[in-house]
């Protein structure tokens, strides 16, 4: 396939197929370093702390959180939306970029998808533990019971149950189907019998047969085609948790696409945070190049600007609507007691990504890393602003209240961060972080030209 010479190579270092296999398999074959152990100790203890706090919540009750009669959702649901948003980048990269034939996705889709799965696990925890009676959470499933009751199909929270479980399942299938050939590669490289057996089991007997590849490609494409609207639907449905309500600041029609955009925005930021470190630690700079970072930064600026336009649209419409509650809700966001949250959100999400218009910054790893963290802070605050500032002052001023999180809520959030990074640390030791077969597939067209293998 012809690629214009003005395009930057996606794989640097004049790699051969063999080299690619070696480079990517190296973290699985080598012994983890001290940094890895230190990392997992840190994330593991965060996870344990979070688990303790979850246990405490379930034991004592949601009263241990800072919520109250007016503000029924706070950190918990903020975290839920934040995590689920982060969990959008992986599938977006794999599915939508696949459909749009963006070759640069091949180096990052595997880890981004893994991240998606971990983020969705973290996200899925919150709807569960924020319940007053989490032990009865199974009520949300429409199973036949003696009372003849079904669930409420009108409830966006129920839609969430279906959307998130579907999203997780399909993402997992998609990810695993993509992994099968690479697990085959690992299987053929590992030496120990046990490992060989395990990877053999996991590789589903992959041989690399042309017919299998044909089906594999076909299923990947269709799964991508399915996953693309799925990505849209999941965060749209999450946004409907808010948008279907009658609460000013929640009920606004732009939410579905705006949430999707924000999700991709934050998801890419998280991918960048992870990959900028991962590429360094695992010596994958030749695969995850500055060009990749720049491409992701472009998506960030695009989605960030969409989010910015949505903010402005909301603000304008609040005024334009002439509805006093709407107008107050937005005034209150910007100037009320939670003004700082609003302005953190604004500066992190709208203003700071605009710096990426400068090519220099777009290609600066340090800047990108810092910015990616800023964006995720900003996106966290976006959800906080939407949830808390809308709830804390809605229709009847008699019920206006303030919300302050407790250590329990913060602890659970830290716990999910721990869970997320623990899973990621384990992942990079177990599975290839980069889709080996896919990278090989674009080596010819997009690799840095290697005189030896360039016979086309």
């Amino acid at each position, binding site marked *: 396939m012809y690629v214009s010479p003005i395009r930057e190579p996606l794989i640097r270092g004049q790699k051969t197929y063999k080299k690619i296999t070696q480079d990517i398999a190296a973290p699985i074959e080598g012994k983890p370093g001290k940094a890895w152990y230190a990392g997992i100790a840190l994330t593991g203890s965060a996870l344990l702390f979070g688990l303790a706090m979850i246990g405490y919540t*379930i*034991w*004592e*009750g*949601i*009263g241990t959180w*800072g*919520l*109250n*009669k*007016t*503000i*029924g*959702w706070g950190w918990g649901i903020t975290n839920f939306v934040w995590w689920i948003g982060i969990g959008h980048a992986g599938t977006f990269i794999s599915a939508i970029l696949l459909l749009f034939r963006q070759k640069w996705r091949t180096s990052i889709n595997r880890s981004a998808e893994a991240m998606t799965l971990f983020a969705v696990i973290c996200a899925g925890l919150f*709807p569960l533990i*924020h*319940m*007053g*009676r*989490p032990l*009865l*959470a199974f*009520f*949300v499933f429409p199973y036949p019971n003696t009372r003849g*009751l*079904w*669930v*409420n199909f*009108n*409830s*966006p*929270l*129920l839609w969430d*149950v279906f959307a998130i479980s579907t999203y997780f399942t399909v993402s997992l299938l998609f990810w695993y189907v993509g992994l099968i050939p690479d697990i085959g590669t690992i299987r053929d490289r590992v030496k120990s019998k046990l490992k060989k057996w395990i990877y053999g089991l996991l590789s589903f007997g992959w041989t690399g047969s042309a017919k299998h590849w044909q089906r594999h490609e076909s299923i990947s494409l269709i799964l991508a085609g399915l996953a693309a609207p799925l990505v849209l639907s999941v965060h749209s449905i999450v946004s409907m*948790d808010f948008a*279907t*309500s*009658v*609460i000013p600041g929640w009920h606004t029609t732009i939410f579905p696409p705006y949430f999707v955009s924000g999700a991709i925005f934050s998801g890419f930021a998280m991918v960048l945070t992870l990959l900028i470190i991962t590429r360094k630690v695992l010596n994958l700079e030749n695969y995850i190049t500055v060009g990749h970072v720049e491409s992701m930064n472009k998506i960030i600026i695009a989605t960030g600007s969409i989010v910015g336009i949505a903010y402005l649209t909301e603000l304008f419409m609040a005024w334009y609507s002439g*509805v*006093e*509650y709407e107008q*107050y809700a937005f005034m209150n966001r910007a100037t009320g007691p939670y003004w700082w949250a609003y302005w953190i959100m604004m500066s992190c999400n709208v203003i700071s990504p605009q710096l990426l218009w400068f090519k220099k910054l777009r290609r600066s790893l340090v800047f990108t890393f810092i910015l990616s963290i800023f964006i995720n802070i900003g996106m966290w605050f976006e959800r906080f602003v939407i949830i808390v500032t809308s*709830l804390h*002052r*809605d*229709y*009847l*001023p*008699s*019920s*206006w*209240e*303030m919300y302050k999180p407790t250590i329990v809520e913060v602890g659970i959030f830290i716990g999910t961060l721990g869970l997320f990074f623990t899973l990621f640390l384990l992942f990079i030791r177990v599975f290839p972080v980069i889709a080996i077969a896919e990278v090989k597939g674009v080596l010819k067209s997009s690799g840095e030209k290697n005189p030896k293998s360039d016979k086309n």
Partner: protein
Amino acid sequence: MKKHWKSLAERNTKSDTHSKNDIPKGNLEQLLDIFDGDQSASKSNRRDFLKLCGYSLAISTVLASCENSVQKAIPYLIKPEEITPGKANYYASSYVNGSDYCSILIKTREGRPIKIEGNDLSVVSHGGTSARVQASILGLYDTNRYKFPKIEDTKASWEELDQEIRKTLEAFKNSNEKLVLLTPSIYSPSSRQIIKAFQQAYPNIDWIQYDSSSSSAMIQANEMCFDKTGISEYRFDNADLIVSFDADFLGNWLDSVEHIRQYSKKRKLSDANTSMSRHIQYESRLSLTGSNADYRITVKPSEQALLMAQLYNEILILKDKDNYQLTDSSEDIKELAKELWKNKGKSLVLAGENDIDKQVLVNAINFELENYGITLRVDKQLKTKQAKDEDMEDLLSDMKSGKVKGLLCYDVNPVFDYYKGSELAQAIKKLPFSVALSKEPNETSDLFNYIAPDNHYLESWNDLEPRTSRYSLMQPGIRPLFDTRQFQSSLLAWMGKETDYLKYIQNYWEQNMYPLQAAYPNFISFWQHTLQKGVFEPKTDSVFDTKFSHQNMDELMSEISKLSASDGVELQVYESIAIGNGSMANNPWLQELPDPITKVCWDNYLTISPKQAAELDLETGDVVELNSKAKFPVYILPGQANNTIAIASGYGRTVCGVVGKNVGVNVAEWISFSGQTRQNITGNVKLQKTGEKYELAMTQTHHSMEGRAIVKEATLSEYLNNPAAGNEVDHEFDNAGIYEKPNFPDHHWGLVVDLNSCVGCGACSVACQSENNVPVVGKKEVIRAHEMSWIRIDRYFSGNEDNPEVFFQPVMCQHCDNAPCENVCPVAATTHSSEGLNQMAYNRCIGTRYCGNNCPYKVRRFNWFDFTKADSIPNNLHDIAEMTIDLKRMVLNPDVVIRAKGVIEKCSMCVQRIQDGKLNAKLKGKPVKDGEIKTACQQACPSGAIIFGDLNDKESQLVKETTSKRNYHLLEEIHTLPSVSYLTKIRNKISNQT
């Protein structure tokens, strides 16, 4: 699931050890004797048995519905004649607590009182109740009560106690040493006769009545002016113009239940009645009464006397009578005088302070305005307060001097609430003989040698005469739970007489009451009918020519004319709406009832004007020191007169149950004695900021309506021009929508709240808590906005911060037909009934709180912790008020399930009452009649502000109100289609008067 005892024998072996014991048994213990087999030997009777059964049934109902296993369940062996399990019985009775009186019905289930309802037949309380009346039921099951007689702090039997006391009494009688019987005002005719007999038996005993909140000045002023000792009866429903100087007549001034009813009756607007009274309030602190006034003028207490004198003078001028030399009255006072004169014979002027001069002045003004006989009368008296303040002063000095050797103290707590409480305590400790006849330990009884515990009123017989010739009866709803005895029986016992007080009352009534009527041929039927009705109000046509005379009027006026307003800060001590004098401080429902004005609960605090707060750089919650003596948290109260502060008494109980102990600070010492009466005003106090902070538990922290049409209002003249005034956009959106409005063919239950009638007293809140088993969460959780009230009264301030207009709006679940909450519940735990109710299936609820978020009215409440012990996880109970112990659980309404941790709950529009009403109608084979079903809040409301009914019943009172032009739905622009609606608030203002 259910665990029964395997056999009675198993149970018996356990109680065997008990029965061998000779220690006298409390009633609860006696109850258990039923199962000892030897029923004849047991003293238990029908009610005991029922009580236990009911109790068990309650527990089982409550528990079976939750996640816990059932501990006990005892089926009826023989069905008692008047009890049908699951059906409530009602007994007419009377609530009495010191000067608080109310005619009530006791609702019992399986023999167990569970709820107080107002008695519609009473002309005094007219079916209304107050928060304290509603909450009193919980006092019955208070663990803090005395459970048996005590001698010097050790358990004794009644026989022992009676023996010793009689012996001692005889000894004192023989040595003719003075003893004192200290009681609150006794307005029971039979009791008064017993006391008199007691005094005859022991002539060395003096009887002193003590009212914790004194109205001595009124009694004395009436004595001076009209030669009638006692308090006049007021008729707010006859008054077109009410001018009150600091009289909180809708709050704690005399009888709020009666006053609220009269007041709101006169102010109820409808198509038929378009007039209402005008109410002008002069006061320093923003009282409940002031907040309802059409005009409210802030004055310092020290300025009031002069204003009243000027007003009197101006009226005299208008009447062309001799008048006095006073400083020139302001235009306002002149205007007011004219207005009063215009309304002569239909006006009412009141003074709240316990100051004889002021009371004389208002007597004079009312007399000049020819109001006597119409809006107030001295011949008909309010008898619930009879004490004179001097008596108590004398008692204390006599005790100190040793003249008084012994004290028998019934149902008063002067050590706590008397301003010289600590001196009194010292004196009591020195007394050789002291007998406390209280039902529970308090600061006073704690110091006494003998404890002869009194019954709770729900366990007592009594008769009462709260107003001249308005009698009512008190009958018990249950046998005494503990080994206690009524005060009257104790006196009888100590006189050596038959202790059956019921017989005593019957005798008294046969002699004195029966002849007053002609309707019943014999006493038995008279008695039974009266007992059933609870009240006996014989027609008495008396003509009384009120003649005003006061010898020292000139002197009084000249004294007042010399007064000049002080610059200093003036402190006013008042009783709060919920806690009153503090005798019910151990009642968690009352502690958690937010003050109507400040919305603070679980504390007293110092209210201060916004201006002064700014001067002293204070915020709500800052702690100040008062005269370097005591510290109080500050609450900045809009409408508090500048340079005045106010603190509620009744707080700071130290000998009390777990609930009320050390809640707030006792301020009794800030009351003083002027020589004639006790004064609750202290001039020239010094405030000092300490820099400390204190967290007040407030159920509402934002006080402005933010310009939103939440409480819609209009002035009377606007209303007369246009009945829809203030409510112009009403029902604009009724027909918008993509899909059809839901249709409820059979019933469509609804409520309407008349914001013009609601005075904000909070009776509905407590009634709801009692009816619906709403948990108590405690101060800490209220601070965290975790309170559970199903009906709250929103209070808004608007206008000038120094003297704002106040709005009250009871908000409960609005039962929206397009309910945003129902849509979003993932498990369909909240759905709409076919009768238009928004219902909660607690067992289905998984606690996402999504419904609560999506409720625009924020009426949904979440069980943040295990408040009710309905959770299967151990060691996580949050029950600061011990509401989950077995005894207190007896108060639970078995028709309403208690809610587990993690479940949303909310107003059900008393669906259990609706169901009951429907069943009753079905048994009768007739459709439900309008008015047959009343919600708990409606039943409790003294002003009739809440009306329940069927929106499909076009003849119902509800539909009449909902079709009124004043009717609107809260937030109707979001099309939730509530079944609850409101009527606009109308203030009787005229444009040219300040």
